[in-house]
């Protein structure tokens, strides 16, 4: 050990710190793990006061939905193998089969293909194989854990949650694209200009960031509802009512997100040496060409990181979307509030849990894939500034 003796820690301290860490990890993961478990049970089990009942689900089992030891072992095995494949071999394959320049396209195809194969194997082939195996393997094939996909089926099929999913997709997709386009331009301009004006703009953006969103929505709402009348003198009869339109919400969320985006992108642009611009300018590029052809290609990590945070803002927003969108264009997060406000039966509650897990699953994947970028994004502004 190279640690100096004075820096070495007492056993009590080491155990204390390790214990605290384990405790924190438990607290951090437990609520999320628990809603995942609850979402697969029938209402009686999900809200049972005995945790073992929630995990093993006797009432769900009694209804005939259950997994045997065989199911659990094989299911976990397939999951583990597919994760291993996704994180070890998929990157290599993408690298091998794509030409430089089409890497993003390659990844999109690879991920879509992987998802397709996974769905076919996990939900199509595996259950079919398991029915045969369970019948043959005697006591190992008897169901022991109650587990039912019923809640998900009723949320996604009966309650048409996929509509909300598509709306969420539209809104978040729009927010990410527009706020990155507008934000990279501004971030670059602010990073490369040392003028006082740039400084004051940044301070102004910081002040805008502090505004409660309800204040802004109170400003939009009357204007959006009456926008057809307000805009008629300019646009004639084509004047739209902005209330309830996804593109209006996209514009609003982009604007709310701008202060944060330009601060973060600016700090990423500042990491790119000025000499790169100057070289491009000497070679005869205009400012915009230098930005487009020289700076942006090396800016991808920063853009991805900022894009992630824009995604989170659009995806997680409740206040703006619930007030500015009508029921038809509702995104997922406000839609779930509708679920538990009904609160008539525990069945509604369990369905709300299944919807909640459905909303969380993409975020979980996001952290898995982009953990490094998220951490670098969090620290980008803070550690330097």
């Amino acid at each position, binding site marked *: 050990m190279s640690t100096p003796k004075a820096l070495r820690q007492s056993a009590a301290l080491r155990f204390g710190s390790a214990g605290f860490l384990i405790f924190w990890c438990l607290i951090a993961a437990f609520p999320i793990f628990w809603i995942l478990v609850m979402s697969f049970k029938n209402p009686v089990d999900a809200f049972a*006061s005995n945790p073992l009942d929630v995990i093993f689900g006797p009432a769900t089992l009694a209804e005939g939905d259950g997994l045997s030891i065989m199911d659990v072992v094989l299911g976990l095995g397939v999951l583990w193998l597919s994760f291993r494949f996704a994180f070890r071999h998929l990157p290599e394959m993408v690298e091998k089969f794509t030409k430089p320049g089409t890497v993003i396209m390659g990844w999109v195809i690879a991920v879509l293909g992987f998802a397709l194969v996974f769905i076919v194997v996990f939900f199509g082939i595996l259950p079919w194989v398991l029915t045969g195996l369970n019948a043959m393997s005697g006591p190992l094939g008897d169901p022991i854990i109650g587990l039912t996909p019923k809640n998900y089926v009723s949320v996604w099929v009966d309650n048409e949650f996929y509509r909300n999913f598509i709306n969420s997709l539209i809104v978040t997709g729009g927010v990410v694209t527009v706020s990155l386009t507008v934000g990279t331009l501004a971030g670059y301009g602010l990073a490369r200009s040392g003028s006082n004006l740039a400084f004051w703009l940044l301070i102004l953006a910081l002040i805008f960031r502090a505004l409660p969103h309800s204040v802004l929505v109170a400003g939009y709402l009357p204007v959006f509802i009456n926008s057809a009348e307000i805009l008629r003198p300019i646009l004639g009869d084509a004047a739209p009512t902005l209330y309830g339109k996804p593109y209006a919400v996209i514009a609003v969320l982009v604007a709310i997100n701008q202060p944060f985006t330009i601060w973060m992108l600016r700090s990423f642009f500042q990491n790119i040496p000025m000499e790169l611009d100057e070289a491009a300018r000497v070679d005869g590029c205009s400012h915009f060409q230098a930005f487009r052809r020289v700076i942006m290609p090396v800016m991808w990590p920063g853009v991805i990181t900022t894009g992630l945070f824009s995604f989170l803002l659009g995806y997680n927003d409740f206040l703006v979307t619930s007030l500015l969108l009508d029921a038809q264009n509702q995104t997922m997060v406000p839609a779930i509030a509708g679920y538990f406000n009904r609160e008539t039966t525990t069945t509604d509650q369990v369905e709300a849990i299944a919807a909640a897990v459905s909303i969380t699953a993409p975020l979980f994947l996001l952290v898995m894939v982009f953990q490094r970028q998220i951490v670098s994004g969090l620290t980008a502004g803070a550690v330097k500034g």
Partner: protein
Amino acid sequence: MKFKTFAAFVGPSLVMMLLFIAFPLVSVFMQSFYVTQPIFEQVEVESCTPGFPNPICVTEIKSQPVLGADGKITTETRFSGLESYRNVLELGRVKAAISNGSWTQLMNVDFWKALRFTLSFTLLTLPLVLIVGLSIALAVNNAVRSLRGPVIFISLLPFIITPVIGGLSIRWLFIGDGILTAAMEWMSGANISMFAQAWTIELMMMFYRVWHVAPFAFVIFYAGLQTVNQDTLESAIIDGASRWERLRFVIVPHLMPLIVFIALIHLMDSYRVFDEIVAFSSQSHVISLQWLTYDFLTPDDAGNRAISRASATAMLTMVGIVLLLIYPLKRTWRDHKGSH
């Protein structure tokens, strides 16, 4: 860079911010002085019931909304000055409550109730977030290198989860005879109901908020810990500083800019507390300022939105955030000027 190029680059972003942030602010400010109401007219209605020898007729004066040509109720917008503010602040009831010396009476007025909760929520969670975040960062820094990645992964989960869903996931642990409520009942032997009184709900909300934000503080502190000057630490050891003294006099001063940064962000964000109210459905017990505006903006049973009152609360909320941020902003400004 020439001003023209600078303007071309920054222009779109600035236009968006002016159009969707600055302009709404102005319009909220204006709205708060105006009130839009349906116009009522006084109509003399003569209603007769058959009688003998003459029908019995009663004339009464009714007020009814004026219908426009399209059959809708016509509304008028009139200047009302500070009326909306008066309606929101309800100073009369406040005075009565103060002269009675009754805190509960004061807490019956929505605005003051919301203000009380928002401020106590903000100020109580702030130290908790800083302490928990720093403790996790220190513990992770202390852990074996191979464990750090998984721990960071798990820690990011509460941070990245949708706030409403995060709040719900905590709520579902406690609701009714949820497992944690059941466990507490088993330990204490008393019958516990976590959603029956305000303070337990507030406790859960604060727990949720610390759970949600501490990972953010942790990641930033953890990055800061990597840059602590090892020589300073060593000389502190040679000078005989204990572990606690090293933390107190070397590490914390080194992290001070980060502490200020996190405190600033946390003040801004937790003053906007809103998602918790939705997730815990606590409107009958606990409300926040932002929820108050939201409530005025949601259409009531008749489909009307109390826009002017919402604007008034929005302006008051803004005044609050300005007051709250003046001190930390002044401080950073002094540091900024001092560093040049």
